[in-house]
């Protein structure tokens, strides 16, 4: 089931939390919401689950309008809210049975379903414990289990890996990837590596607006523009090499990366490459080129560039 948002706006008082956002997520796609705190990620997710009513705009789950038919839309959504609220006084297994019940899972299938999600989320040993006795990571798994209990077509996960240890994070990522093949998933995070590892598509939101949208590669391409090289040249004096590099036609900017090892950052003019020129320069002067590597723009840099003020 596709998720479609059309021109959604939501204001809190005078502040626009979400400002005229439109987006579409297709079945089998995992979309990652990235953005600084207060960018509008959670607000957007709450609106999709119909917990928040937007001021204007339309949201569709498949062909069902969330505004007009929230009960029907909610049946298709599994939701893990921010901070993962749970009935802490209940044992895990009771809690999951309760959730299965109100999600409308048929009575004779509830036990099978509960057993299934307990297995998928790796909480078999904890199933008889009270939720309040669990560690944060296990609570997070219970939250995820609760979202999966009715086999929803759409999964909305607000920061699904907070509080998990690195092993658990990898497990949950794998799980999300597996689920994401057949279902539509939106997850939010501010851990960039995580979004890159799990999501097919990344959307960066800042101040209620979508500022970037695409695969990790596409985002890099957009931000990169010009080639960046890391060059280490030996057997020459630092100043001479610096000058030599700067005088190349294709080079826009040269910077010292590490003076002790004579490493430079070379930025080429847009659309041009300086690799040949650097090599020829070394040959001409009898210097030894020990390193010539591309510098990939990291997602962090794109993120900072797009979301930092001025």
């Amino acid at each position, binding site marked *: 089931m596709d998720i479609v948002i059309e021109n959604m706006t939501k204001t*809190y008082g005078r502040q626009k939390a979400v400002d005229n956002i439109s987006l579409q997520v297709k079945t089998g796609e995992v979309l990652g919401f990235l953005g600084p705190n207060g960018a509008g990620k959670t607000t957007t997710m*709450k609106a999709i*689950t*119909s*917990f*928040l*009513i937007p001021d204007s705009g339309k949201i569709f789950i498949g062909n069902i309008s969330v505004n007009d038919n929230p*009960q*029907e839309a*909610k*049946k298709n*959504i599994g*939701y893990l*809210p921010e*901070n993962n*609220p*749970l*009935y*802490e*006084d*209940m044992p895990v297994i*009771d809690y999951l049975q*309760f*959730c299965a*019940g*109100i*999600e*409308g899972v048929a009575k004779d299938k509830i036990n099978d379903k509960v057993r299934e999600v307990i297995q998928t989320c790796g909480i078999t040993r904890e199933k008889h414990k009270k939720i309040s006795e669990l560690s944060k990571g296990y609570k997070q798994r219970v939250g995820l289990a*609760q979202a999966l209990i009715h086999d929803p077509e759409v999964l909305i996960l607000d920061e699904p890996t907070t509080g998990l240890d690195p092993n658990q994070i990898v497990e949950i990522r794998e799980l999300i990837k597996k689920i994401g093949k057949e279902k539509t998933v939106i997850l939010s995070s501010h851990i960039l590596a995580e979004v890159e590892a799990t999501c097919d598509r990344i959307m960066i939101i800042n101040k209620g607006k979508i500022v970037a949208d695409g695969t990790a590669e596409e985002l890099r391409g957009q931000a990169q523009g010009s080639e960046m090289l890391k060059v280490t040249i030996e057997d020459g004096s630092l100043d001479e090499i610096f000058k030599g590099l700067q005088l190349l036609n294709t080079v826009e900017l040269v910077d010292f990366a590490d003076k002790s090892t004579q490493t430079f950052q070379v930025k080429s003019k847009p659309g041009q490459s300086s690799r040949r020129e650097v090599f020829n320069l070394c040959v001409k002067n009898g210097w030894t080129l020990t390193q010539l590597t591309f510098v990939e723009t990291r997602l962090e840099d794109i993120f900072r560039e797009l979301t930092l003020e001025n």
Partner: protein
Amino acid sequence: MKEIWIITKRELQAYFDSLMAYILLILFLGFSGFFTWIYGSDIFFVKQANLQVFFNIAYWTLFFFIPALTMRLLSEENRSGTIELLLTKPISEWQVIVAKFLAALLLIVAALFLTLPYYITVSSLGNIDNGAVFSGYLALILVSGMYIAIGLFTSSVTNNQIVAYLLALSIGIFFQIIFQMLSTNLTGILGGITDYLSINSHFDSMTRGVIDSRDLVYFFSVMLLGLVFSESMLMKKRSV
């Protein structure tokens, strides 16, 4: 309907798990038993084979106990954020409200059911008016429903249980005492209105065995109003 029952069951479970239910049952039976049989103008003092004494004691006990029962119902969900979990499931606000109302009401009905030995005892002591007993119990259930609806509403406006309790008591005290006091001092239309708003006149006639549609309308409209207000509080949170 199925969803309502699932939530009601969970709430009842929570009452018993948190010992709240046991404490309420013991205190209710303790208080009402003590004042009905042992102390003050008890049944032996009144020397009539009816349950008037018990009904009056229960009337006051419930006034204080019900807010304690309802204060947690929505305020705790607001505080811990589980309300978000509940309302993003395919159920409506109304179903949530009704389910919680039913849970508290069922607990009260259970408490009243446990006073059945009072009836058996009194009926063996003299010639008891069964109709009055029936309508008296019905009146207690209706009064309880009314206070539960009020408590549910005050629980929906805050995320602090104590605030919800005190707020419910202060609204309840109008129906319990203040309207009656006003009605004795006021005349004309105002007197009539305050008299109708006071629980006393409705409750008294019912414990004497008179079931009047005016009384039923009164109880059901306050209940409905409380539930509708609670529902709109839940809805309001979503469009803020």
